[in-house]
């Protein structure tokens, strides 16, 4: 048992560190370290342009999309090298957050399902940060139950073979600045829900695409609604067969869960620092036994996640496939951050209600409080994650699906009885 690199890993780390030291945009570091929830913190210049510049620099030196093959603009590195890169890139990784969905989910889906011609056309500019992709999956009436989506794709009646799209997507990160979108649609409502879906990729500048930012519960607008009105997509931009969309979407969602050892933030270091400084009856809060019990429980969640990630990295380092342990990451981090932010406000007393220049750490705990409900829902809600752990890790049977063999058009759409 140790935390040491193998000689090869150490050599790779040294190479990465030297390159980052020589090339990273250090003038942005201070802003990146202040990054809050929902933004990369860059204010002194256009954050998207700064992200594109950093991605381009990485791509030119062969450090872009380390998990992709070289022919599509990737670095063809091993999983453990990818982990080491991530550790060394540190706060600069936030700069290229706009590419996360493209590199992690859309790209791998295109790689698995598109024609060779499309792959060579689409993937290299995605790798080098010239294009941004978004994922058009969730809809107002289908979140966890993604296969219940209603956006329709119908063959044009002009003989062109094109598809005409009508409907609405929601919770689309980055739609407002994306060039391409991965779009899942319903092509056949007469068969059970999973069987009537078809996947496309879409030029976001197509006529009839309208992006509207959503004003979120915390006042920010990092997500969008995307409306489609008679949007035309050539059949050549279909991924997989007609009716195979669910299978294609699983490629995307599997990749969503493959990020390893990234160590999601729980907010514990910030809370601990706050408890060292805050006072209760003239004593540091950290001396109070009630505070200590709470802090200790948060601390072991934080360290449990950290070392769970390291166990996964250990498996990668030996060339093994990590176990299912990493599936707990978001489930633990989201709930911990929410509870922890409530506790931080509690320690601020009556002033916990304020979210202004007086708030400790620039209002970070208030920001966590207001952002954390989303963490518990996005990318698989707590309940979906518990189902996944229960069914895929513990081997429990799936729930009974009452809509399984029912044609999609006959599935009830309201829980209220009609009178």
């Amino acid at each position: 048992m140790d935390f040491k690199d193998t000689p090869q890993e150490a050599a790779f780390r040294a190479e990465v560190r030297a390159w980052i030291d020589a090339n990273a945009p250090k003038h942005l570091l201070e802003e990146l370290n202040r990054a809050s929830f929902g933004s990369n913190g860059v204010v002194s210049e256009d954050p998207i342009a700064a992200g594109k510049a950093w991605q381009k620099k990485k791509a030119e030196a062969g450090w872009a999309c380390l998990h992709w093959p070289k022919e599509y603009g990737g670095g063809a590195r091993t999983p453990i090298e990818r982990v080491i890169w991530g550790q060394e890139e540190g706060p600069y990784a936030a700069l290229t957050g706009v590419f996360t969905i493209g590199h992690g989910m859309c790209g791998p889906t295109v790689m698995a399902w598109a024609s060779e011609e499309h792959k060579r056309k689409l993937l290299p500019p995605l790798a080098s940060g010239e294009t941004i992709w978004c994922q058009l999956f969730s809809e107002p009436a289908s979140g966890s139950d993604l296969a219940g989506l209603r956006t329709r794709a119908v063959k044009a009646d002009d003989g062109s073979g094109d598809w005409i799209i009508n409907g609405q997507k929601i919770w689309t990160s980055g739609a407002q600045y994306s060039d391409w979108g991965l779009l899942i649609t319903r092509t056949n409502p007469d068969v059970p829900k999973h069987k009537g879906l078809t996947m496309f990729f879409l030029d976001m500048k197509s006529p009839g695409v309208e992006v509207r930012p959503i004003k979120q519960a915390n006042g920010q607008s990092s997500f969008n609604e995307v409306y489609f009105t008679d949007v035309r997509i050539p059949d050549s931009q279909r991924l997989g067969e007609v009716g195979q969309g669910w299978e294609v979407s699983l490629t995307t969602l599997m990749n969503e869960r493959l990020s390893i050892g990234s160590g999601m933030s729980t907010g514990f270091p910030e809370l601990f620092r706050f408890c060292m400084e805050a006072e209760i009856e003239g004593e540091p809060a950290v001396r109070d036994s009630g505070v200590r019990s709470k802090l200790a429980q948060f601390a072991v969640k934080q360290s449990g996640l950290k070392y769970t990630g390291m166990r996964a990295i250990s498996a990668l380092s030996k060339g093994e496939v990590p176990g299912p342990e990493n599936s707990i990451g978001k489930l633990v981090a989201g709930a911990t951050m929410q509870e922890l932010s409530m506790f931080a406000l509690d320690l601020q007393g009556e002033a916990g209600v304020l979210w202004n220049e007086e708030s400790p750490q620039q209002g970070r705990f208030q920001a966590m409080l207001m952002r954390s409900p989303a963490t518990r829902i996005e990318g698989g809600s707590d309940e979906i994650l518990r189902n996944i752990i229960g069914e895929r890790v513990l081997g429990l049977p799936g729930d009974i699906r009452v809509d399984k063999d029912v044609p999609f058009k006959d599935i009830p759409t309201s829980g209220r009885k009609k009178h």
Partner: protein
Amino acid sequence: MNLDFSDEQKQLREQVRRFLSENCTSETVRAILEGPESYDKKLYQGLAELGVLGAAIPEEYGGVGLGHLELCVVAEELGRVLAPVPVSSSIYLTAEFLMLAGTEKQKETWLPKLAAGEAIGAFAYAEGQGRMSPAKIKATVSGGKLKGTKSPVADGDVADIAVVAAKNEKGQVSLYLVDLSAKGVSRETLESIDPTRSQARLTFDGAPAELLGTEGDGWHIASQVLDRAAVLMAFEQVGGADRSLEIARDYALERMAFGRPIGSFQAIKHILADMYVSATLARSNCYYGAWALNSGAAEFPVAAATARVSATTAFQHCAKNNIQVHGGMGFTWAFDCHLYYRRSNALAVALGSLSTWESQLIERMSAGNAETAA
């Protein structure tokens, strides 16, 4: 990076697991729960012969000379099957006290016997109700004679020797090695929530006491040994948590209600998923504790408290929900659920209760933080 046990250590795990599956069944545990014996002598002797009691004891003192990582592996397996034997008292505590603070003669006298299971050791420091602190110790040693009462002492009714925390003539906490067969020692087995591990009251009335370690350094030595024992006990707790989860999962697959296996209901599935989460966090924290114990890292006190807090929380969480998943059957004497529930709550207060360790964890983290800042 290699936060995992080695292939040899994993082989040892298989070997111990095989041995325990034959020699420590539910019947073995229930015989101690319901019978007059305080521990299973045959099982304890078997463990000694297998070499696992002496895993971390050097060969020159009759041990196997492997190390603490191997002992962690053994501890987890003992925890899985609720082994009704005095390993924690004799090995995690007494042997560690001797190795850390004993004189050459003390080590030569006792370590081979502890490793061979020929003698049992116990650690006597608690004195009745309330969290332990130096101020609570009323036992005294004067002119080499010990006076006072210690309770509860795990395995105190069957131990041959005890490490006793008592105050010297200057009122400083010191540790003493006491032969429990000597005159001036009386002992009584106490009833507890977990009769599969015995608890006793030891009363000393002028029993001969031999200094262990530097005089006046007792609390400091005890704290170091408690940290080591905490990691080992945390592995027992992780073993118990994992086993509680497995038992609950198996029952959820088999038990039918409303025409389907109860494990298909989200109300049950989500309880089990949360058990998996707490057991996984605890396991990862225990690996961190094991690494720090084995490598002697400066952050060991933080790692030990981390492992202990996490494992106590996980075992209690998994054991109580194992009963919940079973419904009424889980509250019968016949099902094993209560055995895990008993053990989880007994271990939660052994070596210092959960809130004590929570407090220590944060105290140590803030001390480390202040040092880093300075």
